[in-house]
Every structure is written in C-alpha cells, then in structure tokens.
C-alpha cells in the first residue's frame, strides 16, 4: 500500500466525470473552477457532489478580476461563498490579473502594471475578497505576453510581497513563470528564488506552445499539452528548495483521456516524493 501523501492533483473537467466516479483513481485532490458550478442544479452539481465525497477539492476562481479597476462583483462573491459552504474546499485561489471592465467580462486573465499604486489597489481588493469569503486566498502569478512601460516593480517582487501585505498565500504557477520569463527575457530561476516557500500553498504545472510571428516568437500559455522538460526542471528545482506542495496538472484545451492526465500527475508525484526524501524538513 502506498502510504506517501498524494500531493498531486488534476483539474476536474466534465469529460472525466464518469471515469473518475467509476474508477476513483489515486489522486491527492481535484481542482475545480467554481464559475462552472454557478448554476443551481443539473448534472454538474450531481457529479461534483458525488466526487466531493471521495476527494478534496481546491477552488480555483477565474472571474473575480482582483486586478480590475471597476467595483468587485458582489453577486459573484456571494455565489462563490455559497459554493464554498456546499463543497467545503481545502484551498481557494484566484489570479493576479484583471478580467472585466465596466460592461464586459473578458473571460481572460489580462495583465496589470506593477506600480505602488496598482499594488495598493490589488491588495485592497484581495483583502476585501478574503474578508467577504472568510478565508485566505492563494494568489496566482500570471503568464503574460505584454508589459506596461509604467511598471516600476519587477513582477516577482510585486507577487512575493502580496502575503506580507494582505495575509494571502501564493499559488505558484511554474509554467506561468517560464512563459512570462521567456516572453520578457527574465531569468526564471531568479524569479522562483524570490518566492518564499512558506508562502506557497499550491503549485500549478501546464503545457505551453511557441507561436511564431514575422518579428519573432512568443510563448503561449494554452494548457493544451504535456508539461515541457524545461518546466519540469524548474519545478524540480523549486520543490527541492521549498519542499513538496500540493501540485496541479492543468489541462484545459483539447482535454485528453484521463490516463494522460494521470501519467503527468504521476510524474509530478514522483518528483514531490523525491523532494521529500531529499528534504528532511
């Protein structure tokens, strides 16, 4: 019997509902996008309530727009809280980005400038959301394709400072670190070194693709393929330094068979166990 803690999980996506329930694969936990369950009933809730009886859930919000400059959507927060009451997730996370402007939700994670002013605004909103939800949020670092010329704080400093300013934790997306650093010519290892391991509550891993333009190439965070060797290397170095953390294999586009996800999850699990063996703490 495997007595090692199952640190690694996968995203719960509807093509896998029946397979997971029928076979109850060995998983540490499942990531859920709460916005997919904002309806009051139906098959999504029927499946999720059965699955929640077997697995821990981590709620990964994608729609709060914490980096936005229009008022937080209280209806959204209210429904989010109702779902927390129903499913009792073990972790709650959101993004260091904005998604909505007045009158339109973009359903994307758009970048924000990194300035003292934007940091104050972002932290105010994180604190408001935490107070409203009555729990700590983990905030995820973004992947980005553009930067703002007025940014005066390096992204890793902006990100690493959030726990001290708000009491939040960090969701460290290693693939996002890789993508952002590739696109903006940053040093990914230096970025990761700037993060205090004690603040990290969850790690994400995903695939990306390289898109070519006449002027050059850009890394796209599309969550549609296996984790690349470069990201596995960064992950291994990170957990060797900070110790094992709950780690997610994210795959949101062209979702493959469950077995493919489980194989990726096992790779992550093996590395997490190795890091534990090499880290007596």
């Amino acid at each position, binding site marked *: 019997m495997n007595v090692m803690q199952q640190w690694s999980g996968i995203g719960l996506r509807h093509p896998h509902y029946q397979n997971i329930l029928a076979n109850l694969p060995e998983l540490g936990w499942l990531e859920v996008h709460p916005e997919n369950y904002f309806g009051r009933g139906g098959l999504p809730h029927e499946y999720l309530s059965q699955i929640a009886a077997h697995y821990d859930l981590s709620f990964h919000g994608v729609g709060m727009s914490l980096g936005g400059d229009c008022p937080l959507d209280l209806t959204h927060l209210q429904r989010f809280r109702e779902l927390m009451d129903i499913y009792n997730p073990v972790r709650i996370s959101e993004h260091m980005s*904005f998604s909505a402007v007045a009158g339109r939700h973009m359903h994307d994670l758009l970048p924000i400038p990194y300035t003292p002013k934007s940091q104050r605004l972002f932290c105010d909103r994180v604190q408001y959301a935490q107070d409203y939800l009555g729990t700590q949020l983990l905030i995820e670092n973004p992947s980005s394709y553009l930067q703002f010329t007025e940014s005066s704080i390096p992204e890793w400093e902006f990100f690493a400072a959030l726990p001290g300013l708000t009491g939040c934790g960090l969701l460290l997306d290693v693939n996002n670190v890789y993508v952002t650093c590739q696109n903006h010519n940053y040093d990914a290892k230096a970025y990761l070194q700037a993060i205090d391991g004690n603040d990290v509550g969850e790690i994400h891993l995903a695939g990306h693709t390289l898109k070519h333009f006449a002027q050059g190439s850009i890394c796209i965070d599309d969550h549609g393929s296996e984790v690349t060797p470069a990201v596995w290397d960064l992950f291994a170095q990170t957990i060797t330094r900070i110790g094992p953390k709950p780690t997610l294999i994210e795959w949101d586009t062209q979702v493959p068979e469950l077995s493919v996800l489980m194989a990726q999850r096992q790779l992550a699990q093996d590395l997490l166990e190795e890091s534990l063996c090499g880290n007596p703490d």
Partner: protein
Amino acid sequence: MWQSRLVANVLQQAPVEQDISGHISGSLAPENLLQIYRHNYFSRMQEALQATFRKTEAMLGSAFFKQVSHDFILAKPYQEASLLNFGAIFSAYLKDTPQLSQLAYVADLAALEWAMEEVYNAQRRLSYESVRLNPAMKLVASDYALLDIWQYTGTESAELDVCHQAQWVLVVWVQGNIRLQAFDQQQGELLQAIMLTDYEEQQLAFSQLPKTTTNWLLNIGVLV
C-alpha cells in the same frame, strides 16, 4: 480607465491607438501582442456558443456561424464571470440578424438548444408531497415543425423540407436525460398557461385532471 482603453483595443481590429501602444511593450509589435489576447477572447466565447448551439451551427455552416457569433459577442457584451447564462439572448439576436430574415426557424432552433442548456443546469428536486411541475423543464414555441428541424439538422439526411406548421417543443429532464416532446398549438398553450400559474393554482388544476391525463403528464415528465 486604462483598462477600458486596453480592452477596447483588444476588441477592435483597427490599428492600436497611440495612447495604448505607448504604454505596452514586449517582444512583438503592440498590435501583435493585442492580437494574442483578441484571439483568446473571441475563441473562448465562440467555443462556448458552439458547445451550446451545435445544431444551429450545423444549420448555418461553420463559417457563417463563426461570423455571426463574432458579431454577437461584440454587439452584446456579456458581463458575468460565469458563462452559465452566455447564449441566453443568442436566439433573439439571430432573429434580428438581417441575413436570417427568411430563415426564422434558425432562431427557433437556437431557442430550443438554449432551453436544453437551461434544463441541463436546472435544479431537479425529486421528492414532493404531491405531484407538481417538473422544475427542470422549458417550453419553446415555433411557427415551424421545430422538433423535425432539430432532428434533421446535423444528419446526412436529404434536404430539409421546412414545414410551416406551429409546434411547441417541451424540453424536460426525465430519468437522467433531456427528452424532447412535440405538442400542437392547443396542447402547448395549455401547458404554458399551467406553467405560468403559481403553485396553489397548479395544484388545483392537477386535482381536476382526469387520472389518464395525470398519468400521461407523469409519463412524459411534465409532472414529477
């Protein structure tokens, strides 16, 4: 304010405005950088529509569906973070689309698919003290034989012969599945009238129904 300007430039195909291009940088020209976000946005929203309106897309063809859905996304900004209600007004938009003025049943087909989406996500409480209307149920009215159109669309059958005959289609959750049932005008209007009454009035109406009618309504899932 800068966020609104950024989003406006993500949405538009025109050259990037100077007041935005001067504020962003990256490894590509500002227009190419914004094009990545533009592609992400429209593809995500169009995929959501495609997932709900499969038959409508099959009826219109992929190219036209892509164009009309792109226009819809621009013209009717969606404001919620959950996509649960995205598509609720797509049928009405199609009805007002000039190119579809001669194909009114396309909007009805979209209305039927939206009703199926709503029923899929509806609450389904199954224990009651007495019979009552199924909460996971929608009724769609059309001037055409809508269920026939729905069944034909996306199949390899011969050319569709659109029957201009009023039909009501019930979309109802029964025993773990969505079931479609056609009604004529009279039956549809009766059922709609019952659905519009409050709980007490419905109970009174059901108590006066012949047992055979009650059993039939139970069989087709209208009553639970």
